[in-house]
């Protein structure tokens, strides 16, 4: 156990593992959520993120590990005694109860007085701006309104933590963006610790104070959105959170080397040994394309590349290129319109490439990560 401090986190998940039959769904999951913090569990379907949420809420039991709320061990408590507020993807509003009765359900179960319930429900109806809809049934409300009822219903009994299960999955893209801003500001206003699960990286970046990236039942990295995006610690995180190019090469006298490409590495190379297989990871927006004569030295130049495909993706241009390394590597580059106008390119053009920012990671031979694969 770690040394006990008096300031315990709102939620702490320690060494949690879970298998369904023979398949391990979660392996040694550890994280904390502080008071008022929003943590996003980001992962593809099957990564185990829903299972974590269900274990925290008590709807599923872990095989190993503990869950504590404000230092209180709730690992063995059934869901009803845990005091979590779960916002289900389908919202799970009780269809035969109107908005007020849905919100007051937890208070009625706790045998609060009529007056107490009425005033608390009133407060919450105002908080989530549903004054005009208080007598309506869930089926008469829009998706966003239903979601607000679900949040108010969970807040009513002052849970230790709010758990959101893919809360925007059932909504249109436009509404989704608006709602997640609304919900983030609401959560910041009420200062309740919250855990979101999502597979949408944009949602994770915008919602979370911190992001935990899950892959195959393990947490690959936890950090602020900036940290996770700018300094991915694994190839999976780099490709799952935003697009990334990955070049595989070897560590060769302080440099990354892959065929003609040599990128000198300045620091944090102590852990590599000579000849070790390493990966050069960089974002499509960090690649610059210049005609050979005006490629400046400030870039780490790669090699020449041939444009294979040019496509337009709204605000920017996306190029697929073939890099002239030892084996031909594919490369994805995105450029803003300003640069597209200055330096137009078409299929078959040959240009020098350079990168302004990159990460070097050890290359573990995982089947899922093929060299130069763009996810």
């Amino acid at each position, binding site marked *: 156990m770690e040394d006990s401090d008096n300031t315990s986190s709102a939620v702490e998940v320690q060494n949690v593992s879970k298998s369904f039959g023979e398949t391990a769904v979660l392996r040694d999951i550890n994280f904390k959520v502080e008071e008022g913090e929003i943590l996003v569990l980001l992962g593809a379907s099957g990564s185990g993120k829903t299972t974590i949420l269900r274990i925290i809420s008590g709807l599923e039991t872990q095989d190993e590990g503990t869950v504590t709320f404000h230092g209180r061990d709730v690992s063995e408590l059934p869901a009803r005694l845990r005091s979590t507020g779960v916002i289900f993807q*389908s919202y*799970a509003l*009780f269809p*035969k109860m109107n908005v007020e009765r849905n919100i007051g359900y937890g208070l009625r179960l706790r045998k609060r007085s009529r007056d107490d319930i009425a005033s608390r429900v009133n407060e919450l109806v105002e908080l989530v701006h549903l004054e005009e809809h208080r007598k309506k049934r869930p*089926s008469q409300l829009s998706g966003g309104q239903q979601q607000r009822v679900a949040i108010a219903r969970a807040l009513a009994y002052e849970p230790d933590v709010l758990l959101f299960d893919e809360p925007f999955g059932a909504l249109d893209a436009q509404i989704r963006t608006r709602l997640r801003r609304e919900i983030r500001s609401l959560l910041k206003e009420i200062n309740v610790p919250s855990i979101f699960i999502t597979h949408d990286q944009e949602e994770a970046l915008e919602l979370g104070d911190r992001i935990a990236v899950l892959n195959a039942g393990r947490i690959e990295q936890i950090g602020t959105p900036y940290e996770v995006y700018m300094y991915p610690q694994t190839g999976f995180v780099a490709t799952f959170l935003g697009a990334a190019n990955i070049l595989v090469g070897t560590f060769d006298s302080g440099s990354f080397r892959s065929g003609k490409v040599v990128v000198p590495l300045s620091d944090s190379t102590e852990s590599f040994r000579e000849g070790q297989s390493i990966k050069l990871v960089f974002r499509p927006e960090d690649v610059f394309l210049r005609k050979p004569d005006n490629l400046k030295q400030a870039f780490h130049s790669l090699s020449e590349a041939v444009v294979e495909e040019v496509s337009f993706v709204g605000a920017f241009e996306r190029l697929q290129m073939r890099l002239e390394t030892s084996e031909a590597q594919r490369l994805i580059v995105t450029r803003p319109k300003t640069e597209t106008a200055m330096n137009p390119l078409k299929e078959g053009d040959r240009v020098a490439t350079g990168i302004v920012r990159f990460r070097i990671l050890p290359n573990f031979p995982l089947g899922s990560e093929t060299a130069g694969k763009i996810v």
Partner: protein
Amino acid sequence: MSANLSRLRHTHGFDIVKPLSVAVLLLMMLPLILLPLASIFIFGMSAGIDKFWDSLTAPDAIFALKLSFVTSFWATVFNLVFGLFAAYVLARYQFWGRNAIIVLISIPTAIPTAVAGFALLLLWGPYGLLGQYLPDDYRIMFTPYAIILANIFVTFPLAFGVIMPVLETMDRSLEEASATIGASRWQTFWHVTMPALRGAIVGGALLTFARSVGEFGSTILVSGNLSGRTQTAPLYIFAKFNEGQVEAANAVAIVLAVFSFVIFSILFFARDWLEAD
């Protein structure tokens, strides 16, 4: 030009097939369903309303109707409770033999009602498998209890059959949400599961009750068909018809027909209201 015409006919023009097919449909139903029903009312009223009223208020007729409704009521109560319980267990838990139980529950629909009555006699009758051991005071065959047993048997799967699919397709997250909010299993069942089943429960009850009231085949075997003691309304109709008292039979038949019609209307129209969110 012709393509244009046929397009007109299908979208704007008068399509003769529509009224024609509806007419054929009604014409087919007329001798098979509508006329037999109409004749009950035509014959029943032909002797005048007074005669009809006298036949209906004959003590044996009133007794028969009452007996039918009371025995059906208890059979309905039992099968509703059982159906709800069985549906909940079978919808919630997966276990070895689950499908076999579902088939077993549904078997009575496939068994001829006379066979059902006969089977009950062979079990509970004076010389039956278990009946022979019963003390004389507790012989249940040829009493109203036998009628309830027969009704339970023939309507066994009905309430279950209506409730089960609703439970199976119910969004599980409703019950999970209730649990995370702090409800015990019983509170969740009462506040969340039951309201979702309201329509199915009312529907299953009406179906069971209507089917029980009309039961003939099994009842005639187990009840003894004693006028004023164990004679239900359908048995009364049959007995009076055999005795040549057509008016007496007809009066009770009208009551049963109207009753069925009312139940059906409730089922048909109240369904939306009961299941509305």
